[in-house]
């Protein structure tokens, strides 16, 4: 699959995109894998109350994934594009 990085996350990984083969089947597992690889913090943000401010955003094939879905298996597969992004700050 293709993984794209944006903003300060791109700077931390030192790449804007990469092709990656993974055994991770959930967003949580993939983030854990990348955290170990690039020493990036992806703090848990699936608080049901939504009280924790989001520190990063994930999209699969240009569809935003809610943090409550990060533990759901098979939201992505080979050939998909996953974007890992900081909170938006346009304009």
């Amino acid at each position, binding site marked *: 699959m293709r993984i794209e990085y*944006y*903003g300060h996350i791109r700077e931390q990984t030192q790449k804007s995109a990469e092709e990656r083969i993974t055994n991770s089947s959930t967003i949580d597992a993939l983030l854990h894998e990348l955290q170990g690889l690039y020493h990036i913090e992806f703090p848990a943000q699936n608080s049901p109350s939504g009280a924790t401010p989001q520190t990063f955003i994930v*999209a699969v094939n*240009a569809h*935003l994934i809610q943090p409550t879905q990060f533990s759901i298996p098979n939201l992505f597969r080979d050939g998909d594009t996953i*974007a890992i992004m*900081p909170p938006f*700050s*346009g*304009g």
Partner: protein
Amino acid sequence: MGNENQPFFQSGVFPKGTYTLSDLISHLKQDPIIKECGAIMTFTGIVRGVSQNSSSKMHVKNIHVEANIGLANQALQQICTDLQQGDVKRVIIYHGEGEFAAGEDLVHVIVAGGHRHAAFATLQQAIERYKSTAAIWKKEILDDGTEQWVH
């Protein structure tokens, strides 16, 4: 900026220097729908010359703007589609990407409507929505060379 098969305007993120507010207004005035409009409201977001980091009042030399173009365009076009109804005839958002100096234009939001009240309210809604839903990021480059992402 559009032909018979496309919307008159396609809002989105575009490289710096490829359009001006004046270009956008001139083009909008060629849209046949403008005959139904009595007001054009515009908002221009510019690069603030003082850092947004509250712990410092450092001067900003440049700002770097980057976007996930696919996601950002999708969000900007959705905002325009959602808000373009009733008395509000056109909503257009053009956001720049690249390197900008303090004072330069970053984003233009334009609303054309039958009357001013609906157009004013829609302009504000469009601004609030693009800030929270468009996949765009800014990094300040300060006078002393330090860099910081704006959150």
